[in-house]
């Protein structure tokens, strides 16, 4: 008898011939998550297993954040030959519980003398006789004793839900425009969850925003990186561009022109990093630069696809999501934005392209962009 962590995956089951590719990626991601705690991770017979870690609770915490993991179960495994002994172990695990229970058996070793319904009945009977205070309810049980008969017998009661999604790295790579607000970390998380590796681009307006504001953005990147195995953050100095825009461009267009510069810079960085798409936290109509017309104007400066997973979300829905993934509190820290200087009082909500182009013609855009990228700082989170 021995303790281990049994890891179940979800959507990868649906994959056909390339399932091994996804499983290899999942195994690699779980190994990376578990590495600081020691122990072994292996894949066998449609399950991943972790054993020998220094701290099982910390291990569960880390593994449940890995995309591609559907749920994890702290389990006991023991030789399956002596069914009586397996039942005794199951009863031992249920001792002290009260209320109702059922046994849910899965027999992947089809040569095992008992089939699943027989295991359910026999083990259920055993537990009922040996654990006082428990009754059977097969429809709405308080507790479920899960039994998996594989190379050995695996027993577990607790099933902990995990992040779901697909293993990071199986879906390509994308660059996230990460601001430090509530939305962009959520947007990044949602795309990463689909197996996409992330890098992030942050625009830094020193001295209008501070070192603390930058640190906050890096903290956000660190929170999401727990699920996606590290994020490279590109911190782009943006003050000069903002000052030039403020100086030379039409007032009501400054935010929009700024957004267009951000997209151009992000695309260039993305290309260098081998990313194939950009991700933003925009949602239709949230602010003036996110009206449909404005989004069209910012979109047209790049040729890469731009993913906006929050496009149809209300703010309150985004906040709930941010709370769930643990970024909300950090996003709400107040170090930010002394840069109201750059926010026009009446931004254009129905911008005209010719006016934008006219304003932008007054700037040496290519030189500004090159300069900003040259001075970009890279932080591994």
């Amino acid at each position: 008898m021995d303790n281990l962590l049994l890891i179940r995956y979800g959507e990868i089951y649906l994959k056909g011939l390339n399932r091994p590719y996804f499983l290899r990626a999942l195994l690699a991601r779980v190994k990376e998550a578990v590495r600081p705690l020691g122990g072994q991770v292996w894949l066998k017979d449609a399950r991943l297993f972790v054993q020998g870690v220094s701290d099982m609770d910390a291990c569960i915490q880390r593994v449940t954040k890995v995309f591609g993991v559907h749920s994890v179960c702290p389990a006991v495994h023991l030789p399956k030959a002596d069914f009586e002994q397996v039942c005794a172990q199951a009863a031992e695990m249920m001792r002290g519980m009260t209320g109702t229970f059922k046994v849910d058996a899965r027999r992947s070793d089809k040569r095992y003398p008992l089939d699943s319904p027989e295991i359910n009945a026999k083990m259920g009977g055993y537990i009922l006789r040996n654990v006082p205070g428990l009754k059977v309810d097969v429809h709405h049980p308080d507790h479920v004793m899960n039994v998996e008969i594989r190379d050995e017998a695996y027993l577990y009661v607790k099933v902990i839900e995990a992040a779901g999604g697909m293993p990071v790295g199986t879906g390509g790579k994308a660059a996230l425009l990460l601001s430090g607000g509530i939305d962009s970390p959520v947007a990044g998380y949602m795309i990463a969850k689909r197996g996409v590796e992330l890098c992030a681009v942050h625009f830094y307006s020193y001295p209008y925003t501070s070192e603390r504001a930058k640190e906050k953005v890096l903290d956000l990147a660190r929170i999401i990186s727990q699920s996606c195995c590290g994020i490279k953050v590109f911190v782009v100095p943006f003050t000069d561009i903002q000052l030039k825009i403020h100086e030379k461009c039409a007032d009501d267009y400054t935010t929009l022109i700024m957004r267009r510069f951000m997209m151009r810079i992000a695309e260039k960085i993305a290309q260098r990093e081998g990313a194939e798409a950009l991700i933003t936290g925009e949602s239709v109509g949230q602010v003036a630069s996110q009206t449909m017309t404005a989004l069209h104007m910012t979109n047209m400066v790049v040729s890469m696809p731009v993913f906006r997973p929050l496009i149809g979300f209300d703010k309150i829905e985004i906040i709930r999501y941010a709370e769930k993934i643990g970024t909300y509190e950090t996003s709400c820290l107040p170090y930010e934005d002394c840069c109201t200087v750059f926010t026009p009082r009446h931004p254009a909500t129905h911008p005209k392209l010719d006016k934008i182009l006219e304003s932008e013609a007054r700037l040496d855009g290519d030189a500004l962009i090159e300069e900003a990228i040259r001075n970009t700082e890279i932080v591994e989170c």
Partner: protein
Amino acid sequence: MIYLDNSATTRVCPEAAQAAYTCMTEGYFNPSALYVPAMEAEKQMTLCREALLSAVHAPQGSRAVFVSGGTEADNLAILGGMQSVRDGLVLYSAGEHPAVREACEALRTVRSKEIPLDRDGFVSLEKLEGMLNEEVRLICVMQVNNETGAVMPIREIAALRDRLCPRALLHVDGVQGFLRVPFDMGQSGADSYALSGHKIHAPKGIGALIMGPRCRLTARQIGGGQERTLRSGTENTPGIAGLLAAVRHYPKDADLRAMKLRLWEQVKALIPQAVYNGPDPASDRSAPHILNLSLPPVRSETMLHALEGDQIYIGLGSACSSHKQRVSRVLSAMGIAGQRAESALRFSLSPLNTMEEMDFAAQALKKHYETYSQFVRR
């Protein structure tokens, strides 16, 4: 590096650091223990108490209670002082630090009310007079305002108290004044005085509440009965040793005001738009080490971070509140609003600063002002 945020905290002086170190590695005994080395630790505490009482000219019958710092000292004076009072009124100036204001507002059995400030940031004696009556049990006014450097008229306030509500106690938060602005507790009429070590080059985590003869308190922290049951918990002996050394070695001859005036004169000459907030920097009603000025239209945070690029570190209104609201509560209470309030900067000096640093800071301010004043919200 030019450090001009000494009202937030100060660099620990070598003597204090050494004293704390020696205490930690050699004189580490618990002062409550019965053997001889422990008595030595207790002796150090007595010396420090005496040094504090003498530094503020505490009257006969006063005592010093060691606490963790200014906030705890204020909390103890207010929450501990009012615990057994069943009804009445507590007054606090609109310039008080949150450690005082929040404590007053947290009182359950006693109501609290704010005393308005005048345009220069002083407690308005006229308004205060109208607020004093037999119902008042406690008046809290700081010695020196942490944002503007206004030296509050404690003696006048005590005189009004003596005339209109003699049983009311007067608590003075001396965190920003202790050693930098002379204080005579006996003559001032104050009943309690809060001080903090880390503002005068002692380590963080040590402070004291000086209790005058009329001051009666209920403990806020109970347990082993240390500090004559007023503050249980093993005494912070390294902090106390550091505090004693810092008080003994505080350079009393440092001319903080000369440096402050040099800074102000230079800034005024280089940036005509500069205005000071609070009392006239040259007046002796302005603390010698604090200068609050506005450089509209450049926002405080922008200038702060721009100076940070030159390794010049200054404060906004108050470092304690930089996590909270944007416009300073104190400046609002003085009727300062709009761009002037949003561009307010606080320079706070210590004897470690030099005249050259003042010149350098003024030049840096001018340089950044020229850049950033061009970019204002349209």
